[in-house]
């Protein structure tokens, strides 16, 4: 008979690294997709009338007011029941990206709206057309203003990606849970996981605060 509990060993390095890579992959994917979608939706919301705004607003509201863990289970069960089963990575990426989009769009919208109308009028009077105004004035100025908030959302996505474990994606936390089951050494493994997240997140969040301070002055 095989033994049930075996201590952590160097053989587990590859296994842990796969978990780390999976966490990084799904986070980067969700941040990139969430940013692109958020930019589009945020722009549409800043531009459009009340009705369109309300429609988008309602949808985004749902994404922001239901816990991610529930969204993940619901979505992955729902697509399956509808006959299009997705593997945990795809389902997780879609949900995490939309969730990211919901927060990003608000960030970008406030950025676009922060550019004073007088500045746009000035640009138009210099002979720029509508799109030139957007491209040369509103985008660069609006985006610069929201960089720290963007970074904040991106960081929370890295941390929230841990939840994709509930639908079976083998990211870092699920990997470590499996190791805890096998080794019965929760403390060592959990501390390792905590340090990993901290190492990724801390420099970025410090940088974000540095930029914020610089911009405030």
């Amino acid at each position, binding site marked *: 008979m095989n033994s049930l509990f075996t201590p952590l060993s160097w053989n587990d390095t590859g296994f842990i690294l796969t978990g780390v890579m999976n966490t990084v992959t799904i986070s980067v994917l969700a941040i990139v997709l969430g940013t692109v979608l958020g930019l589009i939706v945020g722009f549409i919301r800043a531009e459009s009338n009340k009705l369109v705004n309300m429609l988008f607003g309602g949808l985004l509201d749902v994404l922001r007011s*239901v816990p991610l*863990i*529930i969204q993940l289970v619901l979505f992955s069960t729902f697509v399956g029941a*509808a006959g299009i089963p997705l593997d945990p990575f795809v389902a997780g990426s879609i949900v995490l990206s939309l969730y990211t989009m919901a927060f990003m769009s608000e960030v970008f919208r406030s950025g676009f709206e922060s550019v004073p109308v007088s500045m746009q009028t000035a640009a138009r009077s210099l002979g720029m057309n509508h799109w030139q105004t957007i491209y040369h004035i509103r985008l660069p100025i609006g985006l610069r203003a929201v960089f720290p908030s963007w970074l904040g959302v991106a960081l929370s996505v890295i941390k929230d990606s841990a939840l994709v474990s509930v639908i079976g994606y083998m990211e870092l936390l699920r990997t470590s849970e499996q190791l805890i089951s096998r080794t019965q050494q929760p403390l060592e493994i959990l*501390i390792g996981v905590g340090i990993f997240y901290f190492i990724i997140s801390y420099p970025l*969040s410090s940088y974000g605060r540095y930029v914020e301070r610089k911009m405030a002055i």
Partner: protein
Amino acid sequence: MTYEFHWNVVFQKMPELLNGAFVTLHVSVLAMLLGIVIAILLAIAKMNNSKPFCYVATAWVETARNTPALFQIYMAYFGLGAFGIHLSPYVAVLSALVFINAGYLTETFRGGFQSIPSTQYSASKSLGMNSIQVYRYIILPQMLRRIYHPMTNQFVWSILMSSLGILVGMSELSGTTQRLQSLSFRTLEFFIVAAVMYFIITKLVLISSSLLSRKLFRGEI
């Protein structure tokens, strides 16, 4: 779509779900209140120049902000368990949420306090107010206005994050949903109802918060 919905199973279990929702609300409110108290202390410690307090506060804030909530909850439950400290699932989730709330609110409070120019303090003093009056009538009202919104967001966040109680077997809304769906295998139905309940709870919180803010700040927010 070939799925047949069986809603009556869910309606039969409504009392249990509502009870779960109550636990969710309960733990998040408590986590918010305790978080605020600790955050005030940490903010004072951070703004103070006495080194040891400042270090503790900084370590707390950075750990809370830079690691996942899921990790904090595991740590409170099984991590502390390795030291022989046994928290119930409820207390483990509560302490993790308090830990994180305090970490985020500390920065909110500090930012709010620092955003009020110190000249206002001297000005009020020169008008003959004493320190308590300055804080009561000048500093705190302005500060509250600035931190009100981030605080509401933090509260909504803790309601949503309390759903992680599912992972340590806590009987809040998500945990109850998970148990009920395991027994009847009606996954979609139970999770849809849970999603709707979370939506209603957060909406109610946001609406009451904006009503309260109108009363507090007379529309000047």
